[in-house]
C-alpha cells in the first residue's frame, strides 16, 4: 500500500493534511507457449499454468483464423488462453502467384508478392507482400479475408504484425526490383503497419482485439526506428523475443537487453505499453541444462518488473528451433514449475 499526503499551509503557519491510500496490483504475468510447426499444444499445456499462446500465420494463406485443421485453437481461446496471432506479410512458400478469392460476397484479386526479405547471402530469400503493395491497397483482400475469419472465432486476440522486422530487414529488402537498406526497410514497414492498422481499426473488430508489431529486438537502432510514438499510440503492446544461445547468457540479461534499449530510446507512450514476449527459449547446445535456466526466469521477470515500466505481461516459451525442449518431458516439467511461481501466479 502506498499513501499520498496532501498538506496546506497558510501564512500564519496553520496547516491541515489529508491522505489517500492506494495499491498497485501487479496482475500475474501470463506464462505461455508455442509448439513447433504450429502443432496442437493442448497436451503439453494440460495441467500447467499456461495462459498465453503464440501462433504464426501468413496473410497469403487462405486459412488464418483459426488456421488449417486447427479447431483446438478455438477450444483454447474460449478456455481463456490469450492468443498472440502473428500475422505476416511473409509468404510461407505456397504457390506465390496472384490470388483471386471471394470474401463475404466481394471478390478480390491480390497480386503476387513483390518483395524479398531475410536476404542473407547463400540462402533463398523468402518472398513477402511488399510494403508498397500494402500502402497502395493491393493487399486489402488479404486483410478482408483474415478479418472475416477472425470474426467467427468468438474471442479477441492480439494481432502481432510481422514476426521479427529486424530479422526480415537485417540484410535489406528488395521490392519490385528496387533495393532498400535496413533503415529504409524499417521506415517503409512502419508506413505499411500504419496502413494495416487503419484498415482494421476502421472496421468492427471482436472485443478484446489488440495490436502489436513483431521484432526480435537484437538491434537497438532498428528497435528505435520501428517504435515511433505516433505508431505506439495505436498499439497495445511492446514486443521482443529473448533467447539464451551462449553459456554466459543469464535470464535476467537476456530479457533485460531490449528493455534497456526501450527505456533509453523510446517515448512515454511506448513505455506505458505492457510487454509481450512472443518467444523465449534456451538453446540446448550451449546450455544443456535447460531446466535449470528456465527455473531462473520467474525471478528475472520479477526483478525487471520491479524496476519499472515497461512491464512484462506475457512470456511465451518457443518450443521449436533454438528453444526446442530436449528432452521434452524435462523441459516441460521445468516450464510448468516456473509458471507455478510468482510472477506467474
Amino acid at each position, binding site marked *: 500500500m*502506498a*499513501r*499520498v*499526503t*496532501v*498538506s*496546506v*499551509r*497558510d*501564512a*500564519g503557519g*496553520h*496547516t*491541515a*493534511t*489529508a*491522505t*489517500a*491510500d*492506494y*495499491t*498497485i*496490483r*501487479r*496482475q500475474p504475468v501470463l506464462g505461455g507457449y508455442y509448439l513447433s510447426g504450429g502443432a496442437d499444444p493442448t497436451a503439453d499445456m494440460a495441467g500447467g499454468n499456461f495462459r498465453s499462446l503464440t501462433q504464426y500465420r501468413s496473410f497469403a494463406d487462405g486459412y488464418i483464423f483459426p488456421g488449417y485443421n486447427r479447431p483446438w485453437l478455438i477450444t483454447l481461446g474460449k478456455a481463456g488462453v490469450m492468443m498472440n496471432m502473428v500475422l505476416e506479410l511473409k509468404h510461407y512458400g505456397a504457390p506465390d502467384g496472384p490470388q483471386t478469392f471471394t470474401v463475404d460476397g466481394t471478390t478480390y484479386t491480390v497480386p503476387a508478392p513483390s518483395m524479398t526479405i531475410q536476404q542473407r547471402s547463400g540462402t533463398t530469400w523468402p518472398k513477402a507482400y511488399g510494403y508498397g503493395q500494402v500502402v497502395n491497397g493491393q493487399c486489402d483482400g488479404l486483410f478482408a479475408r483474415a478479418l472475416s475469419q477472425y470474426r467467427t472465432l468468438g474471442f479477441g486476440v492480439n494481432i502481432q504484425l510481422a514476426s521479427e522486422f529486424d530479422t526480415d530487414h537485417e540484410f535489406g529488402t528488395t521490392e519490385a526490383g528496387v533495393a532498400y537498406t535496413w533503415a529504409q526497410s524499417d521506415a517503409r514497414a512502419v508506413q505499411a503497419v500504419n496502413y494495416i492498422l487503419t484498415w482494421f481499426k476502421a472496421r468492427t473488430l471482436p472485443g478484446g482485439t489488440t495490436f502489436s508489431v513483431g521484432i526480435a529486438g537484437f538491434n537497438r537502432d532498428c528497435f528505435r526506428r520501428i517504435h515511433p510514438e505516433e505508431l505506439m499510440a495505436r498499439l497495445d503492446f511492446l514486443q521482443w523475443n529473448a533467447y539464451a544461445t551462449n553459456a554466459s547468457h543469464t535470464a535476467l540479461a537476456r530479457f533485460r537487453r531490449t528493455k534497456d534499449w526501450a527505456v533509453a530510446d523510446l517515448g512515454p507512450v511506448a513505455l*506505458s*505499453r*505492457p510487454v509481450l514476449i512472443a518467444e523465449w527459449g534456451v538453446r540446448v547446445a550451449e546450455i544443456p541444462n535447460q531446466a535449470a535456466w528456465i527455473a531462473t526466469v520467474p525471478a528475472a521477470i520479477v526483478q525487471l*518488473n520491479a524496476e519499472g*515500466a*515497461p*512491464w512484462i505481461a506475457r512470456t511465451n516459451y518457443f518450443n521449436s528451433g533454438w528453444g526446442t525442449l530436449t528432452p521434452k518431458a524435462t523441459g516441460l516439467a521445468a516450464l510448468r514449475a516456473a509458471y507455478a511461481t510468482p510472477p506467474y501466479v
Partner: protein
Amino acid sequence: MATPTVTAALNGSVFTPGQQMLLTVTYSDADTQPLTVTIVITDAKGNSSAPVKTTVVIDPLTLTVTDDSGRAWARVSDNGAVAVYRSVA
C-alpha cells in the same frame, strides 16, 4: 487566523502498472479572500485618473503533495480551491 481545510481523493484505490492516477485536492481557508482593489490617482489640482482594478489574495495557501512510495505527482490544474495532480502507477 483560521485553520485551513483540505481533502484528497484518488480516482481509484487499486491500480495496475502503467495506469494513470489522478489526485483531486479540495482546499480552503476562511481567511483566504480575494479582494479587488480599485486605485484612482488624484493630483493637487483635483484631476483624477481613470480607475484601475487589481486583485489580491489575503492569506493564500501553500499546497504540498508527498508520496511515501516515492512516486512523483505533477500538478495538472489548480484554480485556488481544487487542484488536480497526476501520476502513473
